[in-house]
């Protein structure tokens, strides 16, 4: 009877949803092609005008075109996940580095979360870029897959670099990734709110922190905000509390880790931290802070420039507190490394290695650290940043002792990271006690 009519209704329904899907997918392809289009446009502009502080004086742009015989003339590719403004600065650095060895380079900026998926796709179709940027905890996993060539083979070392970044880029005793700049986590606090609450110095111990957070909490304002979401971001924000208290990712079912988790659970129970923390990523926590809804926030060095740009917003930063004053704050090391991919083309790989080294040259370290709100990887340069930009000083201290997430477990880090955020979620939502949550997560099979 009514079968035909239903069929028409269903068909039109399907058509509508297909059409919508079509629209949205074409929109997304359009968006992803924009960065490369932008990159190729800027490629046509003369690199000379662009090469300011970053380019070595010995390398005029004309070398690339006129003398390919001198071992140069290669067309290289580089891929990263930077967005518009940072991407533009990096494009200049890439071009200058390529020009200095007589080659040309084109860059692709793949939006954050899609990078690894794209790299895997490129690996299977043998179309990997010559130079690949990776978030440092991914380096060992990708190196294990065989997609990267050891930088050690090209005589590149990380001498003078901060220890955390060296261990992040090292797999099976060989250096695979070199990061020009690194970052880490610290505590930002709203100085106006501190004054209003009569707090004179930032908290250094958990007890102080807890008391201050309670004092700062009032209707509409929480004492503290952080990322507690059930993703690797939640794990990242939990690491300083866990590591500073002696916790270890090999076995999270320890009293040290339980104490750290208990501390955060208590902040939620006291009402000093919103229950919504379990749904917040880092950006959510930061926007609570900038909106004046949180007096303190766990944030990264990259947040500095955005805070500095805000008028009438007074803040300062210190390392995150530790349980006792004698403990050293240990935060996770963040930052992106540049790597040479295993393309099989020896000339291009050698050239790519030179570019990786060039991106981490002292001048570029300075430039990129300023652009990204990061700390130069080189220990001596980092000390200079602490003096020239006092806002970053506390982060220079933190970075020097920062620990790489993959230092201990290597490619198995993601498994541990999953366990950590699983336990964090169970405890912060009040589903389980911290000890029980950690024990369950540690023993869970995935």
């Amino acid at each position, binding site marked *: *009877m*009514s079968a035909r009519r*239903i069929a028409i209704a269903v068909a039109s329904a399907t058509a509508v949803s297909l059409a919508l899907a079509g629209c949205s997918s074409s929109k997304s392809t359009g968006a992803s092609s924009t960065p490369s289009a932008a990159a190729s446009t800027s490629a046509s502009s003369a690199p000379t005008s662009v090469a300011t502080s970053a380019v070595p004086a010995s390398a005029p742009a004309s070398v690339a075109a006129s003398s390919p015989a001198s071992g140069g003339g290669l067309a290289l590719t580089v891929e990263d996940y930077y967005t518009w403004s940072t991407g533009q600065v990096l494009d200049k650095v890439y071009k200058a580095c390529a020009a200095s060895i007589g080659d040309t380079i084109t860059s692709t900026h793949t939006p954050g979360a899609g990078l690894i998926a794209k790299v895997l796709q490129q690996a299977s179709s043998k179309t990997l870029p010559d130079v690949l940027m990776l978030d440092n905890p991914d380096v060992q996993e990708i190196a294990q*897959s065989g997609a990267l060539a050891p930088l050690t083979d090209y005589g590149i070392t990380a001498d003078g670099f901060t220890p955390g970044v060296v261990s992040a880029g090292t797999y099976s005793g060989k250096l695979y990734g070199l990061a020009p700049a690194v970052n880490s986590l610290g505590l930002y606090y709203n100085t106006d709110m501190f004054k209003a609450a009569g707090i004179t110095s930032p908290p250094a111990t958990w007890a102080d922190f807890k008391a201050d957070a309670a004092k700062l909490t009032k209707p509409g304002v929480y004492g503290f905000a952080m990322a507690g*979401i059930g993703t690797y971001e939640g794990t990242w924000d939990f690491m300083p509390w866990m590591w500073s208290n002696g916790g270890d990712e090999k076995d999270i079912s320890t009293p040290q880790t339980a104490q750290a988790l208990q501390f955060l659970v208590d902040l939620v129970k006291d009402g000093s931290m919103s229950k919504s923390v379990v749904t917040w990523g880092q950006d959510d926590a930061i926007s609570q802070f900038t909106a004046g809804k949180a007096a303190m926030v766990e944030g990264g060095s990259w947040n500095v420039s955005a805070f500095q740009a805000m008028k009438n917003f007074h803040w300062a930063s210190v390392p995150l507190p530790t349980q006792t004053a004698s403990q050293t704050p240990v935060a996770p090391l963040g930052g992106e490394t540049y790597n040479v991919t295993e393309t099989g083309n020896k000339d291009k790989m050698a050239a790519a290695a030179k570019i990786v080294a060039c991106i981490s040259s002292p001048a570029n370290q300075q430039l990129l650290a300023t652009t990204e709100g990061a700390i130069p990887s080189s220990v001596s340069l980092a000390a200079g940043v602490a003096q020239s930009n006092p806002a970053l000083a506390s982060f220079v201290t933190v970075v020097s002792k920062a620990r790489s997430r993959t230092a201990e477990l290597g490619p198995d880090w993601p498994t541990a990271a999953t366990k950590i955020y*699983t336990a964090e*979620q169970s405890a912060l939502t009040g589903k389980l006690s911290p000890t029980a949550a950690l024990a369950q997560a540690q023993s869970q099979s995935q």
Partner: protein
Amino acid sequence: MTTAELPTADSNTAPFGRGAPTRHRSARLAEKSIQWLFLAPAIVYVAMFFGYPIVQNVRMSFENYSTRTFFTGQAPWVGWANYVTVIKSSLFKTTLINTGLFTVGSIVGQFIIGLALALFFRRKFPLNNLLRSLLLLPWLLPIIASTAVWKWMLDQDSGILNHLLGFLHISAVPWLVSPNVALIAVVMVNIWLGIPFNVAILYSGLQDVPTELYEAGSLGGATGWKAFRFITWPSLRPVVTVVLVLGVVYTLKVLDIIIGLTGGGPANATETLAAEAYRRSFVEFSFGTGAAVSNILIVVSLVFAFVYLRLNRRAIDE
């Protein structure tokens, strides 16, 4: 596939057969090959875009398909190991229960509200058509955009929903924050999203109920609830089965709403089979186990698809 389903081919080839009885055989052959030609695009399409991915997915679920595979091209055969890992995982039971609750809750809500609205719009009143087309709006919005808005509205501290509840002196509900409430919140949003589909199809079904039945019924005293119970409902039954079965299949595979609202959290309270398959494949890059989960999901959906085909066939036969 039967020839009865190919009216176009039949009517096209019929004149040939009638005009040339001596070449009966070759005509039949031509007819057959033309039939296949008409079928070919559909067969090629189904094989390429449905058959191939499913076969690949099944194969992948029996392999240790990891990040390494992409570079080396080697995916060692592991037999049922991926399925064992998935089923033995401490999360699997939670995921199954969540999937069941999410599907049943969404379908019941969507159907009841959808049917009520469809019945309402059958009356004649001004702006009926306009309102009915406005009802399709949730369907026209990109899901990821509407879930982002819902996420704001459901926010515990500053969401408008809790703000409104505050006026009624109801304390803030931890919509997306508490593991006990999050699934309900996600089901609510999915109901909102599914209403247009239910209204559209149930409304078209209602148009097919002959008005004479109601006239005859009212003479016999069947009005109001009785008219619904003894006239509308029995006439609507075939449409109802279609709506419910399709609804189940659509709801089982929902991913965007969950990713957009909760990402499967808090504390895995909204993790469904679809969300787990996504997480395993595209967050943890364990494609083998991810494929295993999605195959389990496909089997569950297939069961309902077969139910749908059966009921549909019966409706046509009737």
